[in-house]
């Protein structure tokens, strides 16, 4: 599916709200350059739970091994990178591994 601006914005808000709630920080204190591990003490379980929320909301089928391979090529360490990753998951699903993002 191709992402329109509204969907992209919704995903961005979803990611910001998620990390704000999970890490108990004000949404306004988060920026695209906030580092998930160093600044928020986040971990892979958070990423997996977020992925599940995105999968459910947009009925996306993607295997974790695909995501793992993608993250080997293009690591996601900051909020901005997680936003782009989530948008790419919704847009490309399992084909994410074949897309040059």
């Amino acid at each position: 599916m191709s992402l329109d601006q509204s969907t992209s914005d919704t995903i961005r808000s979803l990611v910001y709200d998620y990390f704000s709630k999970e890490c108990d920080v004000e949404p306004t204190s988060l920026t695209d350059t906030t580092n998930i591990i160093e600044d928020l003490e986040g971990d892979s379980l958070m990423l997996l739970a977020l992925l599940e929320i995105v999968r459910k909301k947009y009925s996306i089928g993607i295997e974790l091994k695909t995501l793992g391979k993608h993250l080997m090529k293009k690591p996601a360490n900051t909020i901005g990178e997680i936003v782009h990753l989530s948008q790419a998951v919704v847009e490309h699903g399992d084909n994410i591994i074949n897309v040059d993002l």
Partner: protein
Amino acid sequence: LTFDAPADPLVRCGVDIEEPGRFRRFLEADGAAGDGASLIWHPGEIGAALKSADPCRWLCRCFCCKEAVFKALGQAYNYNELECLPHDNGPDWRLWGGLAAGELPVLLDWDHQIGLVDTPLESRATIIFFKRAFLVYSK
């Protein structure tokens, strides 16, 4: 914790620490496993967790072992294809799907030792993979 291993290492190591309380989100209000659980745990693990006295703790220690394994291998995979099995001498695993077919060869070809410290408050897993030739050489 992730180790940046050389291209052809003799030993691979992975460590993980998890808190059982964080896994409550994967259980429904009635105690059944939620949709997201099947993404991470094999049905055998979920079944065993739901039969256990503390499902969160069970899911936690299984996840902790999986994380340690994938960190050692330097790559995340389908978590639900690595089924952690409890044993008196420590945990072991059964492989499914692509993992059973050898998509991460280390899991099939290398020896390993895994340690798990499991308490109501946290699980700690350490895994070390040894290349078999390395073990022979060491002896």
